[in-house]
């Protein structure tokens, strides 16, 4: 069956099931050739258009260009212009917000968890449900947590592009010197503490046992909060979970590590980041994201090991976060933009990303290239974690309470305020902010 008739059939099927997307809420009616409502049909191959694609990572630009080349094999007359904006200091988001106010957002652009609801629920994006019902994008191709991340207000907004999960990296050499066994997937929090203490004691605090990056939650306290049975935000994104007993246990874990001298102090961790402690051989074990695999391997070679996170009282779950490709609501080329976004969600595009090795692509089954990219390291663990991971905690105004986290929690980790008090304070502030959304 040729592609076009299949899609038309699928579209009819979608409409008849009442799943056809309506674009009534987000009109994109300035000129352009697009159909505004109803089923999605892949545009004709010789559609002529120029669209802009905004990204923020210079390390991924070569891969993006390759993907565009692949896209142009199907749509030779759609020109895609990459716009690179730095991510440092939130510059990308300042720019996107400015462009949005000027109704001048790029046609297609990278989106992340913290900002998806902000843009989507404020009518800045084009819903992609019609792509789904037309079969151009299949939700089952991506980890469920990611699909949930990019669903808001009952609509689907972003095609998952890649994902990150968290693992436990270790320095075999340092562990051997301290007479400590290498971590395995059956380790628990207590194992971390005991063995971490042995390392710190053996090296007399010139080398630390275990740490995580406490300047943000993704590679540290979010995970331990989940592992102790708590959560950061309720699944409906309306209530803070910081004051739950499990959450407090998860936070206490880090305060205990610092107090026992297993981890560098809070002052040390903010002036020298955890990954730098690890890379310089001054930290034996670190909880970090999969993006560190290549750099750590470059630093340590065979001396590097990685394993799943250790089990807390309830599980060894971690958070999963990934970028998505979204379309601006005010795009003047909705057809071309949708065709491009659909292509970005295909296995071909995912394989290009996998080969480039910078990120783990979101398309299920395309990641084996990445998983096998470093002989000697079982990177499959990151992929396995994705299946059971919890979606990155977000809400409509995520950045607001993210700021509260980094305002209030450092004092708790440093032992200056009791963890339970800080957690309650944070929960109250967070709930107040969530109520305003």
């Amino acid at each position, binding site marked *: 069956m040729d592609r076009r008739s299949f899609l038309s059939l699928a579209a009819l099927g979608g409409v008849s099931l009442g799943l056809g997307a309506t674009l009534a809420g987000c009109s994109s009616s300035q000129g352009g050739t697009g159909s505004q409502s109803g089923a999605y049909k892949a545009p004709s191959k010789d559609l002529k258009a120029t669209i802009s694609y905004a990204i923020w990572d210079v390390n991924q630009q070569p891969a993006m260009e390759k993907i565009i080349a692949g896209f142009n094999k199907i749509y030779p007359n759609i020109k895609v212009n990459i716009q690179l904006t730095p991510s440092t200091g*939130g510059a990308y988001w300042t720019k996107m917000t400015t462009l949005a106010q000027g109704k001048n957002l790029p046609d297609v652009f990278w989106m992340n968890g913290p900002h998806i609801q902000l843009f989507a629920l*404020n009518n800045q994006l084009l819903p992609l449900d019609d792509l789904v019902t037309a079969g151009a994008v299949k939700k089952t191709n991506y980890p469920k947590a990611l699909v949930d991340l990019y669903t808001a207000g009952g609509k689907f907004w972003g095609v998952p592009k890649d994902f990150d999960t968290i693992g436990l990296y270790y320095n075999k050499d340092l562990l051997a010197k301290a007479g400590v066994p290498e971590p395995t997937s059956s380790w628990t929090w207590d194992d971390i503490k005991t063995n971490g203490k042995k390392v710190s004691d053996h090296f007399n605090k010139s080398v630390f046992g275990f740490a995580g990056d406490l300047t*943000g939650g993704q590679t540290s306290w979010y995970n331990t909060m989940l592992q102790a049975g708590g959560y950061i935000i309720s699944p409906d994104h309306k209530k803070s979970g910081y004051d739950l007993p499990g959450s407090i246990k998860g936070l206490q874990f880090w305060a205990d590590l610092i107090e026992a001298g297993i981890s560098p102090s809070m002052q040390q961790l903010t002036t*020298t980041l955890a990954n730098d402690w690890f890379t310089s051989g001054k930290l034996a074990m670190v909880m970090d994201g999969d993006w560190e695999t290549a750099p750590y391997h470059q630093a340590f070679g065979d001396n590097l090991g990685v394993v799943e996170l250790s089990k807390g009282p309830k599980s060894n779950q971690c958070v999963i976060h990934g970028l998505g490709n979204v379309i601006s609501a005010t795009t003047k080329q909705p057809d071309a933009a949708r065709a491009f976004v659909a292509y970005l969600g295909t296995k071909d595009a995912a394989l290009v990303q996998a080969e480039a090795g910078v990120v783990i692509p979101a398309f299920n089954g395309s990641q084996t290239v990445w998983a096998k990219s470093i002989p000697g390291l079982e990177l499959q663990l990151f992929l396995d974690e994705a299946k059971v991971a919890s979606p990155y905690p977000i809400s409509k*105004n995520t950045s607001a309470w993210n*700021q509260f986290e980094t*305002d209030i929690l450092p004092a708790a980790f440093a032992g200056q305020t009791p963890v339970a008090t800080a957690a309650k304070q944070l929960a109250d502030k967070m709930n107040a902010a969530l109520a305003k959304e």
Partner: protein
Amino acid sequence: MSTSTAEVTAEAARTGSARSSAGLRRLLPDGPWPWIFIVPTLFGVAVFYLWPIVKTFYLSFTTVGVFGGSTFTGLANYAQLFTDPQIPRSILNTAIYTVIVLLGIPIAIGLASLIERPGMRFRTLYRTLYFIPYVTMPAAVGIVWRLIFNGDFGPINWLLSLVGIKGPYWLATPGFALVAVAIVGLWMSLGFNLIIISAGLREIPQELYEAAQVDGASRFRQFRSITVPLLTPSIFFVMIMTVVNGFQLFDLLYVMLGKANLAMPQTQSIVYIFYNEAFIQNNQGYACAIGILILAIIAVLTAVQFRLQRRWVNYV
């Protein structure tokens, strides 16, 4: 020795000539020329700068949606402003920072007068050396200074350890962090101050010094009685700019302290709070109120300085 001719001249310049010339000029009209001279600047400033300020002022009485749209809320933002505990502390932090950076002015004056000494060799070298920090890109500067102030591995603490002092975690300890940031601010602004003061120094006629020398005045005496008084317009300018820029402290703070920093409450500047409210809390209406507050503070400080200038600034 009694006051030299040069000092008398400088003194007279300060008081005498102003009076006689003013009388003369009142008799002659300037015609439309003043307006022709200022209209281009006025127009551009009005379009690109005053309009945003007016808009900010208006928005400070509203709640603003992230992507536009505002609802009038009256004085709610200002009420919040006066009860927000962060604000007074951040104003204090910014003031301390500014005072430390102001110390750079006497340093710049001293350095400039040494460099501009007649017959001084290697002037170009010195000017370049002191000017270089002003030329570097702020992003790179922040990274380098973070490493310099690093509590575990930075050179400053290493030097201190040589004399037996255990240096603090500069950028993560309250108090020390503000000092560290201010030192960098001073370092960066020294070049700027030096340029202005040097230009002002070159305005001073050599003959005044020569006459003073003939009268037997020491170098320091000359400095005190000729250089400093005639330099006061430049000093005034540099003071105003230091205060204005000091209250704009943000980028440096952001780069040097980073996130989750224990010292942040005792270091954050008022513009940092503004940025937080505007772009992170997405509370633009409240941020506009903060912006107007900053404007008010700096305006008052500047107006005070302008008032006081009559006492000590000598326009020839």
